């Protein structure tokens, strides 16, 4: 048993950390967020050159053949920099669905393009009514002459505004909430009948609603088996939740470090405020919340790496912890920064808003706690 990283993993982690340090100062980040596309294409090229876009993909497609630990290390560092470029949407969601379910033809066509930095992707799964249920799908795909015809609407599509290619979940059979009968289709964002409505979120990311009006998709663009898209989505979302938790951990580390530093320099009543026990104990609480989150992240990563049966349970637990610990950490960071914590100028509030967005992505803490309970208490398995 060991919790050490390989030399290769440490090099990867350090290369992302160095990039953030040299190229992603907070004011630079804010300029990128305010730009028209909300991301930097130059940065994306750099990500490709440094090999980060290749991490989870198999070597036969030009990938790095990395695992959950590698993804964790990259996402943790990206979190520290509040990085806006669509690593999650392109590499882990769009790329993840292709990697796990795409036909050899689709993989051969798109994975190398992702790795080269020439294909931005998105996964359109959310609908107005669906909240956190992946299986709640009203968008339809009905058979047509060349394949399938899509109608419906997807909302809050991460990277939806900039994506070149989109994978969309659509109902090919069954009722609104049935797990069976969901299929996934890959199509270009420029497909006729596909309308994009971009907008910005509180964490700076540019998302879009996608409206499908009789959009034609060839049968060859089906990702995974017909009607069996749910399990594929679930597997990819499970890994994405781990990655989001790693990003959250990086953010929590930053918030704790910045808050601690502030309490050592800010003086009131003639002393640094970190001198007061009431504040010290609050910072110990956030330190423990961070350590506990890290432990659960490691647990989930090990379970995913070893493909353990309880990986899903561990990831649900992790997402609950990220929600609870994240709220504690950012609330205390704002409180201990006093009035400054409320300013848009300071980075603290922006870290907080990214954590809030992570909490609501793929299910909040309550949602995952109820999923966790269903897996763990309704089966009679040992704790």
């Amino acid at each position, binding site marked *: *048993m*060991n*919790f*050490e*990283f390989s030399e290769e993993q440490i090099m990867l982690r350090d290369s992302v950390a160095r990039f953030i340090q040299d190229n992603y100062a907070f004011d630079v980040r804010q300029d990128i967020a305010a730009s028209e596309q909300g991301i930097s294409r130059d940065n994306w090229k750099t990500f490709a050159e440094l090999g980060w876009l290749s991490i989870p993909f198999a070597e036969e497609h030009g990938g790095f053949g990395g695992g959950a*630990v590698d993804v964790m290390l990259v996402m943790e560092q990206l979190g520290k920099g509040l990085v806006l470029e669509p690593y999650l949407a392109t590499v882990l969601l769009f790329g993840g669905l292709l990697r796990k379910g795409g036909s050899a033809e689709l993989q051969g066509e798109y994975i190398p393009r992702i790795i080269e930095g020439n294909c931005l992707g998105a996964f359109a799964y959310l609908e107005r009514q669906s909240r956190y249920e992946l299986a709640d799908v009203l968008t339809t795909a009905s058979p047509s002459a060349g394949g399938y015809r899509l109608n419906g609407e997807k909302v809050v599509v991460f990277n939806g505004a900039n994506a070149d290619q989109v994978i969309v979940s659509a109902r090919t059979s069954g009722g609104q909430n049935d797990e069976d009968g969901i299929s996934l289709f890959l199509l270009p964002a420029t497909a006729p009948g596909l309308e994009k409505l971009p907008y910005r979120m509180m964490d700076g990311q540019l998302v879009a609603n996608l409206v499908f009006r009789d959009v034609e998709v060839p049968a060859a663009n089906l990702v995974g088996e017909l009607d069996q898209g749910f399990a594929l989505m679930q597997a990819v979302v499970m890994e994405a939740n781990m990655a989001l938790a790693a990003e959250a951990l990086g953010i929590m580390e930053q918030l704790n470090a910045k808050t*601690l530093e502030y*309490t*050592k320099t800010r003086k009131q009543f003639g002393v640094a405020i*970190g*001198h007061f*026990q009431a504040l*010290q*104990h609050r*910072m*110990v*609480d956030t*330190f*423990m919340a961070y*350590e*506990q*989150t890290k*432990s*659960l992240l*490691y*647990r989930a*990563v*090990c379970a995913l*790496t*070893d493909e353990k049966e309880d990986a899903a349970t*561990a990831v649900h*637990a992790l997402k*609950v*912890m990220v929600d609870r610990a994240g709220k504690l950490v950012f609330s205390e960071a704002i409180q201990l920064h006093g009035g400054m914590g409320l300013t848009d100028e300071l980075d603290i509030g922006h870290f907080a808003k990214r954590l809030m967005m992570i909490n609501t992505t793929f299910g909040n803490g309550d949602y995952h*706690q*109820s999923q*966790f*309970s269903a897996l*763990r*208490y*309704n089966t*009679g398995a*040992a*704790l």
Partner: protein
Amino acid sequence: MDTSFTPEDLAFRDEVRAFLKEAYDAELQARLASGEPQVYKQAVIDWQKRLHAKGWIAPNWPVEYGGTGWDATRQFIYDSERAAFGVRDVVPFGLKMVGPVLYTFGTQAQKERFLPAILASDEWWCQGYSEPGSGSDLASLKTRAVLDRDEYVVTGAKIWTTYAQFADWIFCLVRTSNEGKKQEGISFLLIDMKSPGVKVNPIVSIDNHHSLNEVEFNDVRVPVANRIGEQDKGWTYAKALLAHERTSIAGVADTKRNLGLVRDYAAREINGGRSLLSDPMFQARLSDIDIELMALEFTELRVLAAVASGGAPGAESSLLKIKGTELQQAVQSLAMEVAAYYQGVLPNELGAQKLGHEFGSKARQSYMYGRAATIYGGSNEVQKNIIAKAVLGL
């Protein structure tokens, strides 16, 4: 990063299971459950002797002194299996507290005199740290030891001394100097409980049990040879011990088992035709604890792995102590909710008319005595001060 078990680890786990099944037999379990103090004491000693015969009595000791040489994985496996089988951990005072101090700081003669009897459970130890006037502010202790040729004359009192009524020996922090900082005039003495002038006064706690005591020292004569290390340097040795103590207080494996028991009871409790376990409110409370415990299990593994690769338990042992004891209490609290009315039933009141709820009075006893966990070993508030200083640099 790798937490998977090798085939050798799995074989070891099977060996642990087989041993526990055979050695922790029904006859022993019945004696351990006895309300008769001497029967209980002898049962504990018998169990520890079986562990000693197997060579597993001191997993945390170095091999040269009788430890097992287990790596972090095996320590984890052993502790998990022990707890899952419902086996209480060894009495900590000799094996987990004074033992490590002896092999780290003791003289050759002291090691030879005391370590074998600790390993064989031939001598029962208790801990003389807290005093009526010194709780969390341990270094303010006042029990005095004055040198008289080759003996110290000890005067004062220790309190909250668990199982002093069973003990053959007590390890004590005593004041040998009032010069300088209060931490600097403290010495570490080993005192024979049969010495003239030692008096044990029982304290009955809110669980209606007698495990706590006050120990008085009235001009007790202690040979200088029973001092650990240098005079006035006892605080250094005590601090090393406290880190070990805090790590073992966390009790993650036992809390995990207790949470499983609470879940099983909740599955059998029926409220309005449905099991309590299926109640969403109950599931929320259970999973709150379950999730924190899953995290703490890995926090403990991280500490174990760090210690196994040459580190010493440091400030992170404070984190384990705080979270571990909070979770122990959370499980005890949930058990009380499951017990409902029967949490109020006093032991032995029901006699032969079994209500099926022995669980209730046991739950209450654990809950009431469990309040101690966030107080002893340095209160959790003191642990937070330690983390603030040692980790956060405040």
